[in-house]
């Protein structure tokens, strides 16, 4: 699902016009714009006039100039494209249908046609369109209700309120004294730290969850099956005790599905910090689907890059991200594409090369095969998780590259030693991911550059040694670069 699925065709075109202008430095010729949009000039003129009416509310902060030749956009410094998107989304009927459905849980056609001031047929059409996009979440609007697995419904609303609807307004509309108390208690009980950013995420989730907790006849067949492997999970048990105790304070009956839903969410989204997650990782059963997939993928990554091992903290970090990816693949269906998938893939390919992207695809193929039977290029969840794999691979490559420590230990007279050493440092510095300095015997290096054969390797611990043939020669430079590349793998 994409943000634009909440908009009408002409609105999507208008948004695209803004987008193109931003991507092209604020000005674009009619020709290029027409080419991009694939519409007639008259239609473009229409869109531009429509935009002019819409941005009127911004009080000159956004201005669009067009003269039949070029289109120009100017925006005040405190305004971004996001606010323009917001303007369009705020007027979206589809968005209002979802919001109404969340607030009231149920609606009658008359109620909704009156509220939105639209005809019945147009309401049906919009619901039908929404349903075609909700399909990937495994949910649908039917008989005035959101229907499907409860976890999926809450997950959809969560994505919706995080990325489509105005998050700030949503949070402001829901007084959160009780939520603050609930999160504080959760922090204490689970013995974790919830950072402000994660707290906001959790607050949105809990507003949605608490609004739906009293709904009878929730569907959870799929979740119950998925949770079979986690019945004895220590974190699940803790969540279950917390959920039972919390709701025992109110006249709300909860069954284990409520705890299962929170378990899936807490592991799939960054709510726990890495150190707190690590505590759980030490306790969890390694044979459960997500944990074993984490191990398999981690090993595949390490093997692929021919790393012997990753630094301890990087390995932990990788596992943290992998669990998020794999928990989402295991429990959830569908996603909202908050980033322009094709665009990012294209950009990433340019920066990190096609290898990383195709390797990420292999990883995704491996994990989805076991964790979830989700196929098809158009599944947004798979697209988003692929982006996450790519980001993780890039992160690991960068982090691994940055740890190459090079020490220069020239054996010559003081002045030469100093000067040539400095020149070498200057020459090596531009190489990405390398830290070069004068050799310090108290430090550990990956590579030591020297000009004489060392009397004993022991002097340099495990560091690789390169003996310079001719200081500053291109011959040496090529060799040094090769060694660095080797060390990077």
């Amino acid at each position, binding site marked *: 699902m994409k943000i634009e699925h909440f908009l009408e065709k002409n609105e999507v075109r208008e948004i695209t016009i803004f987008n193109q202008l931003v991507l092209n430095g604020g000005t674009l010729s009619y020709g290029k714009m027409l080419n991009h949009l694939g519409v007639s000039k008259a239609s473009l003129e229409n869109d531009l006039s429509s935009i002019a009416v819409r941005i009127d509310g911004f009080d000159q902060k956004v201005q669009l100039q067009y003269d039949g030749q070029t289109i120009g956009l100017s925006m005040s410094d405190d305004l971004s494209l996001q606010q323009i998107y917001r303007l369009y989304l705020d007027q979206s009927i589809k968005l209002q249908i979802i919001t109404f459905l969340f607030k009231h849980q149920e609606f009658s056609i008359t109620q909704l046609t009156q509220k939105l001031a639209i005809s019945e047929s147009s309401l049906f059409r919009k619901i039908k369109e929404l349903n075609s996009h909700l399909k990937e979440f495994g949910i649908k609007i039917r008989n005035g209700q959101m229907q499907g697995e409860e976890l999926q419904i809450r997950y959809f609303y969560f994505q919706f309120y995080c990325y489509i609807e105005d998050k700030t307004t949503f949070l402001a509309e829901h007084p959160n004294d009780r939520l603050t108390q609930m999160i504080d208690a959760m922090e*204490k009980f689970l013995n974790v730290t919830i950072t402000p950013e994660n707290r906001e995420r959790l607050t949105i989730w809990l507003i949605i969850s608490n*609004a739906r907790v009293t709904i009878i006849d929730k569907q959870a067949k799929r979740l119950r099956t998925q949770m079979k492997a986690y019945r004895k999970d220590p974190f699940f048990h803790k969540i279950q*005790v917390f959920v039972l*105790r919390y709701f025992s304070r*109110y*006249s709300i*009956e*909860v069954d284990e599905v409520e705890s299962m839903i929170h378990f899936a969410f807490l592991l799939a989204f960054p709510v726990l910090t890495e150190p707190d997650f690590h505590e759980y990782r030490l306790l969890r059963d390694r044979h459960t689907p997500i944990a074993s997939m984490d191990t398999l993928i981690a090993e595949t990554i390490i093997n692929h890059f021919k790393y012997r091992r990753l630094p301890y903290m990087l390995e932990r970090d990788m596992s943290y991200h992998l669990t998020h990816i794999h928990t989402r693949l295991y429990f959830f269906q569908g996603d909202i594409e908050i980033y322009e998938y094709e665009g990012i893939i294209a950009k990433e390919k340019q920066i990190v090369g096609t290898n990383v992207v195709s390797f990420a695809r292999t990883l995704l193929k491996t994990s989805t095969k076991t964790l979830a039977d989700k196929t098809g290029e158009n599944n947004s969840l798979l697209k988003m998780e692929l982006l996450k794999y790519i980001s993780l691979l890039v992160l690991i490559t960068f982090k691994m590259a940055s740890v190459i420590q090079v020490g220069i230990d020239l054996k010559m007279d003081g002045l030469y030693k100093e000067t040539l050493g400095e020149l070498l440092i200057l020459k090596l510095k531009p190489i990405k991911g390398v830290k070069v300095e004068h050799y310090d015997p108290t430090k550990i290096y990956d590579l030591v550059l020297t000009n004489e054969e060392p009397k004993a390797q022991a002097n340099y611990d495990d560091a690789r040694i390169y003996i310079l043939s001719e200081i500053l020669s291109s011959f040496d430079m090529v060799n040094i670069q090769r060694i660095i590349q080797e060390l990077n793998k």
Partner: protein
Amino acid sequence: MRVVIIGASFAGVAAAFEVRHIHPDAEILLLEKQDNLGYIPSGLHLYWDKKISDLDEARFVTEGQLDKHGIVYHLNATVQKVNTTQKIITYDQHDLSDQLSYDKLIIAAGSRQLSEKITGSAQESVLKYKRYDEAQAALIKVEESEHITIIGGGQVGVEAADLLTAMEKQVTLVESMDYVLFKYLDEDMIKPIEKNMIEKGVDLRMRQTVSSIEMEPDQKVTVCLGEGSVTSYAVIMGVNVRPHLPFLDETIKQHTDQTIAVDRYLRTSVEDVFAVGDCIQLSGPGEDRVYVPLINNAVRTGIVAAANLIEPSRTFKGSLRTIGTRVFGKYIASTGMTEAESLFTDRTVESHRQKVRLTSLADSDTVTLKYVYDAKTHELLGAQMISNANILEKINVLALAIQSKQTLEDLQQTDYFFNPAYSQMIATTNLIAWMDERADEDEN
């Protein structure tokens, strides 16, 4: 002034008496759904415990008492609709629909013990016995059942398990938490009870949630759990109660948990409409609003609402969730915050557990006492007791201490009598930490 009260259980009746006391001229009308008056919800337990010989003896109020106070009551009257704009109540009685106007309305409709999550829990063989007719049916069913499954390890469930075990029934008790009576006692306090339960042959199934109840062809019932299932002759629902208020109109605001929103004077969002008892949330031990459906709260809220009918004059002081009972040979009592529940308070709390002798005599019984207090101010926040001897009244002393915000130091100075046959050099409720007796030994 016509005061209509929906529900003639503890809250409704208490409200009616108090209204009569304050407003001698008021016309008071009680509308009761059941066809009988004043049945004590735990009457069946009294019967099984041989405290009464007939369920009919389990009455907290008689028709005569209401008549004497000029309180009119309609039994078998089911309220269908409350119209707060016109101040009219529509109700069914003996298959006829009738209407009634009011000047002041008190909603005391109580709660019911029904699960909306457990499929099959509404069928007849699943016993609930809060009401007289339900209790009569349950009595017969239990008598002919050898093996009974109880769902829920709260006060009702554990008491039932105790009484049924004493009647030599085979009992399986299913509880979703790690331990029974978790609302009232901390895990470290409950151990002797659980030990006795197991010794008495109760099949304890902790950390198990019931998903469905299915009838078997041979009159047996299967309770399906997260893991496995239990088949027995009867099932008792000991789950939490919840209000059932289908008659409310939209103007009366409700919380997410379906309780009616009330202010400190127990006024609802609509003028002249009050709500009490199991229909509302109360200010609980942690001073935030929670749902505490206990009879003591029902009675007290009934009285407070009655006092505020004309103008707001009395605020409700809140609930400490005070309970006292005897199960599996132990007297247990609790008031205020437990250590586990202190999770929900901003305060930093500390707790202390000690075993003290009850008298100065050599054969004295002991009581295990746990108290929870504010680490900074030493204000007492909660207390729990467990003993072979009847210490139940002592919890009321501590409840009063908590309500009047006494600190541990205040309590140490409270003046209690000394008599070696009945007390120790220091009274139990003085909460003196150094009066610890045989702390490492088991109470038995």
